[in-house]
């Protein structure tokens, strides 16, 4: 997987071009070129902030974590041997920063990430869709940040579980069990939340 994935790319939804250019930026930044690093930050900040928001579920905590991850990246970049590993490396720094932030409980009491306007007029099928999204959101809010992280890495970034484990600094088996617990908890949360279990079951089953 090339660096281009994380740089402005979301789960493979956009093109994969520019890998060599990014590699060059990483090499230059590794040598102390702040302009090159700024370009890398500009290209990836949106994507990493989205990941931070999903894991921490707090706008300001996510911004803190992303900033910490970038500063750590800048400081430690001379130690990055393989520029092609920048993506995985950056991901790992961000996950670490998120966990650090979550551990310190910085503003994590606030859980306010709205998905879809709740006051939007319901149209055919939209109400059911909205209900499922709300239930998933509540479920995600209830599980621990470490479980949310593996969900985000696997389902949002579309990473293989082994890469997710690497990003979280945990063994593959731990990642598997953590993902299993997370998805079970999400299902349970949805069922507990749902006033009409059969309808949700229809949608997700």
């Amino acid at each position: 997987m090339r660096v281009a994935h994380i740089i402005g790319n979301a789960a493979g939804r956009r093109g994969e071009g520019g890998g060599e250019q990014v590699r060059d930026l990483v090499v230059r930044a590794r040598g102390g070129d702040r302009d090159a690093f700024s370009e890398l930050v500009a290209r990836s900040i949106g994507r990493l902030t989205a990941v931070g928001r999903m894991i921490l579920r707090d706008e300001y905590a996510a911004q803190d974590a992303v900033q910490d991850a970038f500063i750590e990246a800048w400081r430690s970049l001379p130690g990055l041997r393989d520029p092609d590993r920048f993506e995985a490396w950056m991901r790992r720094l961000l996950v670490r920063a998120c966990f650090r932030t979550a551990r310190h409980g910085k503003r994590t009491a606030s859980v306010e990430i709205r998905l879809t306007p709740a006051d939007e007029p319901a149209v055919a099928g939209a109400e059911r869709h909205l209900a499922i999204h709300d239930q998933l959101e509540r479920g995600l809010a209830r599980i621990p940040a470490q479980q949310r992280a593996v969900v985000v890495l696997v389902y949002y970034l579309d990473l293989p579980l082994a890469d997710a484990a690497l990003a979280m600094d945990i063994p593959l088996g731990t990642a598997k069990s953590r993902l299993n617990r997370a998805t079970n908890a999400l299902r349970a949360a949805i069922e507990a939340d749902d006033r009409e279990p059969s309808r949700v079951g229809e949608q997700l089953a």
Partner: protein
Amino acid sequence: MMSDRFSAGLRQHLLDSANERPADGQLAAILDRVAVTAQRPRLVARLAWFPGRIGPFPSTAVRLALIAAALLAATLATSLLGGGGAGPSRSTVFEGTWIATDPGDGSRQTLDVNAGMTPAVHYEDAFSTGGACVADEVKVFTADGRGQIFENRLAVTYPAGGGCGLTTVPMETGVLDYDAATDTLLASDGVRWFRAREDGARPTPLPTIVASPRPESACLDLHGGGSYEASVGSLTLTATLPASTSWEGLPDSFLLSRFGCPDPESPVWVEAQVVTQVGPDACDRSGPALEVATAAEAISALAAQASIGGPDSVDATLDGYAGSQLEMSQSADFDASTCTDGVLAPLNDISSLDPGNILVVHVVDVEGTVLAVAIHWGSAAERDDQQLVAELDAVVASLRIEP
């Protein structure tokens, strides 16, 4: 099927709900911090961050056994290189003229390497587009340096810098690895150098950046012991290292690692820096630092430094230069996350003091320059290893300082 549909629904939900728009001012805030943040030296950065790290050695015996095995392998490799590498007309495989293309502007670069294990080296860039030659009419950039050969690696330092005539700029140490299979040199910046042909013709076309393989490490292998020299500000420090150990060192600054570059699990290293300032707080380094002009002032400022706990100092000398030694430690449960850059750092230019670490710092006056030499112990367990302590003491005692 339930699992697949649940997964698909969850994935779609996350993709739909993701907010990839940075907050207002978020990018600027990060870049502002980057602008005032220094990068770690390469080795320190690798020790602080090492993807795929190996676990700690289970015992000293295992560690020593691994080191012994590594030394044996290194010895064998040395004999093989020595037996087959050098041609009859060259004293080393590096001797001769090497050609490369500047990846920045495509200009021709030449490296002339003389004979011997510490060869004189002349570097030339036929057309410099950097700021060093902006005022020069002739853009030929030249620099003269001195190399050090360690097995199949050549490290070249350029003490007088380089330039096109009007201005001289500092030069970074060049590290080149000899590739016997292709008779080329691979520089640490990824540029491959080709040997100029005997008839004077130069190989064309010249590839520029080589994506892989890249050198695993820019550290100098010092496994066989011997002498290690590096610049520290205007000073030159030389350490004598014992044989049968696995020391490695940075070529471009004085930093020696006891267990080799790529092993951060036993982080015992020695580094040296010139000290000009000491902050009032080792944790909060956002405020103004105190200027220090003597070792006594530096020690006094360190002793008064907040977040360290007033370490005691004792008189000490380095290579006959007088000063003090103090030992600082940080308990393993200390939370450094609120400190500037998330680390406790008594001396900005010396490695940080992470939880559980011990830092033994010698500060001496060297003809008007305040020099700090620090031994960084990763843990109390290492510090209690008397054999290791004796070895580190011997390395520090071997230091020779040239103003």
